[in-house]
């Protein structure tokens, strides 16, 4: 026990300091990079203003060929307005006569000009420009250009945000990798040794499946295995010896066999790897697999449009691959869960991954919209089955006491992929094109297969698991507590997510003039909050197993209420950002706990069908309901505007959550603390 505590403390310190080191190194690189980027980009922006200024001067000189008097020029203001509109790098254009009089000036006064009040004072050689205007080699005036420093600052700030986004993505990937490496190579292996020692102390003399790493831990495992093998050899030799006496030694043989069974001397070697290692491995597998789907997300609509050709005028045909993917993916989940229960999680995951990889490759190889649609359906089956297999594996490797944390680890991997994938995919697509990015995604899935083959297990297969039919599906759902959870928490949460965040938020931000980069960053707040706070929330929930319903209800209420202030102040960006943060936190609080509750509400069904299949059914209904999100949003937006519609959806979701809490209290639903799934 003392060793466990010391080990836990050591692991914590190591993780904290390793995280600090990695964050500091990455932040330092990002900082020097940002400074250098600014130094290199600013002259390019200024140079453009110079070039445009020279073009404007040339146009004025052309005009003066016909009318040699600067004062008599016509249409200068209109021309300047057009130039300023096309080139936001410049804020003011002024034609100044030789005596310093400003003849024509358009645009908001630049900082320098406004301060000085005269056109001549605009000449700030550091930033602003003065260009001579000539007729036949004689200077007749000058053009002064005030550079829009705010524009330059905004461009540089955008780039700084981009670098910070890159930093966040990089940190997410790094921490996933670092926590797995430390757990798998060090602390998890020491935990495994402690488990083995505990087993041996209790008389379980099965050897440990040695990992073959030759270090101090490996040596201890070898020594323990050596002792175990010595006893097992003695047992086997004694058994052969006793059997050689024939029937007269039957009683002795039986006594010895009983001893062997009691101490598991004939059992195969056991894997003592702790569930934390398996879950971190699952996170890595899930991250890699789901990254592939996220990588193609930014350009897929455009790609579909390109393939559709003449069909592109029909909007339903453009959205069909997306709706079908969601529907088929959700519908495949119950059967994916069932396959996992019957044939093992790893095998099912590998099969599903193969389907997904093949579908992505064939989208590139074959040509035309309908082929693409067919391959996307195949990919959706792979996606749904892989999701169910991973989800089931997370449940398999947890006990009710650790389930929420386990599921949060898996969901964290999926969320991290959804944050990192679009940025990485967008960059690859920009540089190498859509086809190469699809093949890259296919390669990522193959990598996920390699990682899955190495790190996942098949679990305790339930070969006798009931076949999954309509009756079984219905059986899962005709359960009042399960129905309440679905209809008052899960479906409203998905409607809120799909409708308010994924559908309305981009439209709302675009409507208030925010660029695409800002839309991406604001949407990212949801994922980042969920990834960062999810594990903490899950740990709190696991520490209070009888209060799971409260976590679900309060999480969903927070997620909804966070968006409510938008109804009163719809034009404040920070309110939307805070609301999305609350949505991320609230949903991080309730999603893993929900799945934990499902395995408890449907405990009997879980033991009949397997938890993966039951969770698959739950996910199917949840996602099918979530498809209503954009429809609800589109209905509300006409009446309430973007901010009002987002707020109303949040309020409705919060109301449903409160209704769930009331129902839970009124009907006194109990949460059975039964053990579900295999050995953690």
């Amino acid at each position: 026990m003392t060793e466990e505590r010391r080990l836990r403390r050591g692991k914590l310190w190591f993780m904290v300091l390793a995280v600090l080191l990695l964050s500091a190194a990455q932040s330092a690189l990002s900082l020097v990079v940002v400074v250098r980027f600014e130094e290199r980009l600013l002259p390019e922006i200024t140079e453009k203003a110079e070039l445009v200024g020279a073009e404007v001067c040339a146009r004025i000189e052309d005009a003066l060929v016909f009318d040699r008097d600067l004062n008599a020029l016509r249409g200068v203001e209109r021309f300047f307005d057009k130039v300023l509109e096309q080139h936001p790098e410049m804020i003011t254009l002024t034609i100044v006569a030789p005596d310093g009089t400003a003849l024509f000036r358009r645009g908001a006064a630049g900082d320098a000009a406004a301060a000085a009040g005269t056109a001549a004072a605009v000449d700030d050689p550091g930033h602003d420009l003065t260009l001579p205007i000539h007729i036949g080699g004689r200077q007749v005036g000058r053009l002064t250009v005030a550079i829009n420093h705010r524009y330059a600052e905004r461009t540089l700030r955008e780039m700084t945000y981009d670098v910070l986004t890159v930093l966040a993505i990089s940190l997410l990937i790094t921490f996933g990798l670092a926590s797995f490496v430390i757990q798998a190579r060090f602390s998890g292996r020491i935990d495994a040794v402690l488990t083995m020692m505990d087993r041996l102390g209790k008389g379980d003399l099965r050897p440990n499946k040695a990992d073959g790493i030759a270090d101090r831990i490996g040596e201890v495992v070898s020594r323990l295995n050596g002792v175990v093998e010595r006893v097992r050899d003695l047992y086997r030799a004694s058994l052969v010896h006793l059997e050689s006496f024939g029937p007269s030694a039957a009683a002795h043989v039986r006594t010895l066999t009983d001893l062997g069974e009691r101490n598991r001397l004939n059992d195969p070697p056991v894997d003592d790897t702790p569930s934390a290692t398996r879950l971190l491995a699952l996170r890595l597998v899930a991250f890699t697999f789901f990254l592939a789907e996220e990588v193609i997300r930014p350009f897929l609509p455009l790609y579909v449009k390109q393939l559709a050709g003449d069909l592109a005028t029909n909007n339903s045909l453009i959205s069909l691959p997306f709706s079908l993917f969601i529907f088929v993916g959700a519908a495949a989940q119950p059967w994916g869960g069932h396959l996992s229960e019957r044939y093992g999680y790893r095998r099912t995951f590998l099969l599903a991954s193969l389907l997904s990889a093949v579908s992505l490759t064939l989208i590139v190889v074959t040509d035309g919209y309908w082929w693409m649609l067919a391959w996307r359906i195949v990919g959706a089956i792979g996606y749904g089955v892989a999701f169910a297999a991973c989800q089931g594996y997370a449940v398999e490797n947890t006990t009710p006491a650790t389930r929420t944390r386990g599921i949060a680890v898996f969901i964290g991997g999926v969320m991290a992929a959804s944050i990192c994938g679009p940025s990485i995919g967008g960059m690859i697509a920009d540089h190498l094109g859509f086809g190469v990015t699809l093949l890259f995604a296919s390669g990522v899935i193959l990598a996920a297969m390699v990682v899955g083959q190495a790190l996942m297990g098949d679990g305790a297969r339930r070969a006798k698991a009931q076949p999954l039919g309509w009756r079984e599906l219905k059986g899962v759902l005709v359960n009042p507590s399960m129905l309440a959870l679905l209809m008052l928490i899960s479906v409203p949460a998905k409607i809120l997510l799909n409708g308010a965040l994924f559908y309305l938020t981009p439209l709302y931000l675009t409507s208030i003039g925010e660029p695409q980069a800002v839309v991406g960053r604001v949407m990212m707040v949801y994922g980042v909050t969920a990834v960062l706070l999810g594990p903490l929330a899950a740990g709190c929930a696991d520490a209070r197993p009888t209060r799971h319903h409260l976590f679900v209800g309060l999480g969903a209420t927070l997620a909804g209420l966070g968006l409510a202030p938008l109804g009163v102040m719809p034009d404040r960006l920070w309110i939307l950002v805070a609301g999305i943060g609350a949505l991320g936190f609230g949903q991080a609080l309730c999603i893993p706990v929900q799945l934990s509750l499902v395995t408890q509400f449907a405990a009997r069904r879980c033991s009949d069908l397997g938890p993966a299949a039951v969770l698959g059914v739950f996910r199917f209904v949840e996602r099918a309901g979530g498809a209503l999100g954009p429809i609800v949003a589109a209905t509300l937006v006409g009446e309430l505007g973007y901010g009002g519609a987002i707020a109303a959806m949040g309020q409705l979701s919060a109301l449903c959550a409160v209704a769930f809490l009331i129902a839970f209290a009124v009907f006194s639903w109990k949460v059975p603390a039964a053990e579900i799934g295999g050995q953690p």
Partner: protein
Amino acid sequence: MIFSLRLSSMLILVLTVSLGLTAVLSYVKFEKALVGVVVSRHNNTARAVADTIETGLTLGLNLEEVQNYQTFINQVLHQHSDLLAAAVFDMSGRPVFSQVREGVPPTVRWRADSIPTEPWNRIGPNTITLGQPITNAFGRASGILVLDFSRESYDRPLNDIAPFMGKAGLVIELIGAALAVLLGFVLIRPFNRSLDAIEKEVGGADTGSSTDGVDGWTAPIEEEIRSITRSLT
């Protein structure tokens, strides 16, 4: 010692991956921002040239009917030192006017079925190419202006940034690696202490002679097996 080095090397590996990832992704972001600025600058030239050509078409003439465009294209090439080639194509993809700076091989080839009707740009291995559609006075597409710019203004900042990032990354990597080695030595202690305690508890497991440690746990079972055998023989 070896154990702590293993721990440090794992950390250094993760550090290398993370710095590499940050550097590559940041470089790509910078490149994107730079493309935006450079293309916007060249776009200004392209738009101005296209405007002048379109002014000549206001009388409803076709491109090939305007006499002085070749001279104008030559002038444009003369005025912009970073412009390598300029060409005006009609809607069948035939070059009507073109000029290539001396010593620069012409890179632009068109097929009649691929005339874009929107402005476009492409960063090629040797040039930055911009296309600007030309419309006549009635708003109908008459052809396209294609300008090949030198990549110098684009390559210069990139060529500066790449080695800078390499050097900065290397320095940070070295400092980080040194700290990782230090961390390995300091933080391996709890792991080592745990292993020391475990090894002590396992005791003389490999000798089979001690009654302490793991031998102590298995000794009663071994004794029981032996006693069952002995009771018969």
